[in-house]
């Protein structure tokens, strides 16, 4: 018997879960409050598209969330990468910055929610800062490890070929660390995405994360599920995009 290709297995598994969902909701085994059926979901989506949710349409909520994710992720990943590269090159700087990075990395973002509000207020600044702070340590650690894992012979070789320390950094160190930097970026994006709801708790009234949270409060699970699907699917789409970019840019990595 020939085994199925992997994409078919993926398709079948999705199909299986979907049909279980349809069956369970159709047969009324679970109340729509806990698990809305396909029809509820479809109606909920229509309502969200036509009338929006609490003053904003679904695309507006999504747009605001993506803008926050994009800004927080890009600034956090860039700053983290720059810091990580510097930490990888200079042991002294690493010794200086590492305790803060290591403290920040596992810290639940909700822990500093109130502080961010006190320091930066309730506007976009504190929301984006929270996402920035979520992305930064991940990107920094990835870049630092990327630099540390460069074979020392490669650096010696560059110097022997006549590259100045500055040239070694830009022409050898940075590109050598690129695969790990990009892997770190994908990791950071995942964490930023996971932090979105925490960020949108700050004086919310917009964003998919806030919508899910608010709809969940009174078990408005049709809206919550639509929100979860939207956030999940866009997350996968962005991750795929990054993966595609990664494969194009660092096609040489690991070979």
């Amino acid at each position, binding site marked *: 018997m020939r085994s199925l290709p992997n994409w078919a297995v993926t398709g079948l598994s999705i199909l299986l879960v979907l049909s279980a969902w349809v069956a369970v909701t159709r047969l009324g085994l679970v*109340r729509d*409050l*806990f698990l809305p059926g396909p029809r509820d979901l479809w109606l909920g989506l229509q*309502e969200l598209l036509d*009338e929006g*949710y*609490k*003053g904003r349409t679904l695309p507006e909520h999504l747009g605001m969330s993506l803008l926050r994710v994009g800004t927080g992720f890009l600034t956090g990943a860039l700053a983290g990468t720059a810091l990580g590269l510097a930490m990888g090159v200079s042991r002294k700087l690493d010794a200086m910055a590492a305790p803060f990075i290591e403290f920040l990395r596992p810290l639940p973002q909700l822990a500093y*929610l*109130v502080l961010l*509000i*006190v320091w930066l*207020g*309730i*506007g976009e600044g504190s929301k984006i800062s929270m996402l920035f702070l979520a992305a930064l340590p991940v990107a920094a650690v990835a870049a630092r490890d990327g630099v540390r894992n460069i074979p020392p012979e490669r650096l010696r070789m560059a110097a022997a070929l006549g590259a100045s320390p500055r040239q070694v950094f830009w022409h050898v160190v940075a590109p050598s660390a690129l695969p790990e930097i990009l892997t770190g970026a994908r990791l950071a994006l995942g964490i930023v995405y996971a932090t979105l709801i925490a960020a949108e*708790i*700050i*004086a*919310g*009234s917009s964003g998919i994360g*806030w919508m899910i949270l*608010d*709809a969940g*409060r*009174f*078990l*408005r699970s*049709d809206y919550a599920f639509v929100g979860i699907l939207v956030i999940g699917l866009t997350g996968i789409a962005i991750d795929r995009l990054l993966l595609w970019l990664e494969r194009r840019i660092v096609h040489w990595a690991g070979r």
Partner: protein
Amino acid sequence: MTALPLTRRSALAAAAAATGALALPRLSRAAPAKVNVGFFTEAKPTMIAKGQGWFAEGVGAPITWTEYGSGAEINTAMVGGSCDIGLATGSVATAAGIAQGLPFQVIGLVDNIGPAEEMTVRTAANIRSPADFKGKKVATPFGSTSHFRLLGFLKTNGLSQRDVTVLDMKPAAIQAAWAKGEIDAAYVWAPAKSKIIEAGGTPFRTWDALDKAGYAIADTIIVHNDFAKAQPASVVGFLKAYGKALGMWRSSPEEAAKLVAQQAGVSPETAMAEMKAYEFVDLPAQTGEAWLGTPGKPGKFAEVLKGTADFLVEQRSLRSAPPVGTFGSALNTHFLQQAVA
């Protein structure tokens, strides 16, 4: 722990004596092994009954106390079966839960919230009339009784959510944002309310007008249907424990405030001031027409809940609300009657 059997037995005896002959056959059931109660830390007489162990005595079993962030969370816990009794949960969450057919019933009230939750405006923002709210930022914890009141305030004054920016913030976040001067007003309860008043705020009276306009809010005691069926004596005992604490607040408020202060982690003066803002409804009064009513003849509170649910539907927080009868039958006053008998 060795004293446990004794207290349990004495509690049962007390409950038996209190509930009288009518309830006696039910008492033949075994007492629960333990009872899960969801609560909020706040300055109310309920804290006396909690701190003195009266609730545990009343239900005849040890109590696992779980603090929740909101009434909506207690609703969710009820669904999951991890909460038997919800103590002083807001009427908005209660109305939503009944509308959604969640498996709980209202067995009593703790308080009529009245002025205890109120709008506070930044003194410097110069807000004198409802019209002055235009273009201002007002914060409130969404899904709460305060949120409900705030939306009622906007609606009754012809203000839309475009005129006023309504922000969803937890009480702690409200204090932080207030300190930063980022919000112009907040609708919230103590202690955040008193903190922001201290930090340059002025109360803006809305509660009495809103109560009359159908935006009354209260805190209820809800019990899981399964628990109510299996442990009626415990439910009655729980209500009686609250009645006892309320009696103490009436007869010796200083002593009551001291005990509440210990539990809530505030000064006795603060506890006193905060408790004075609530209208705690005595158990016999709760069976009156103005509140829960009697079995088969639900009081006005059913209409309050119905009105609340209808408003939530309007806000699209709920998909639909059942007729007022459903809310009436969710008020189970059998236990109250036994508790005051």
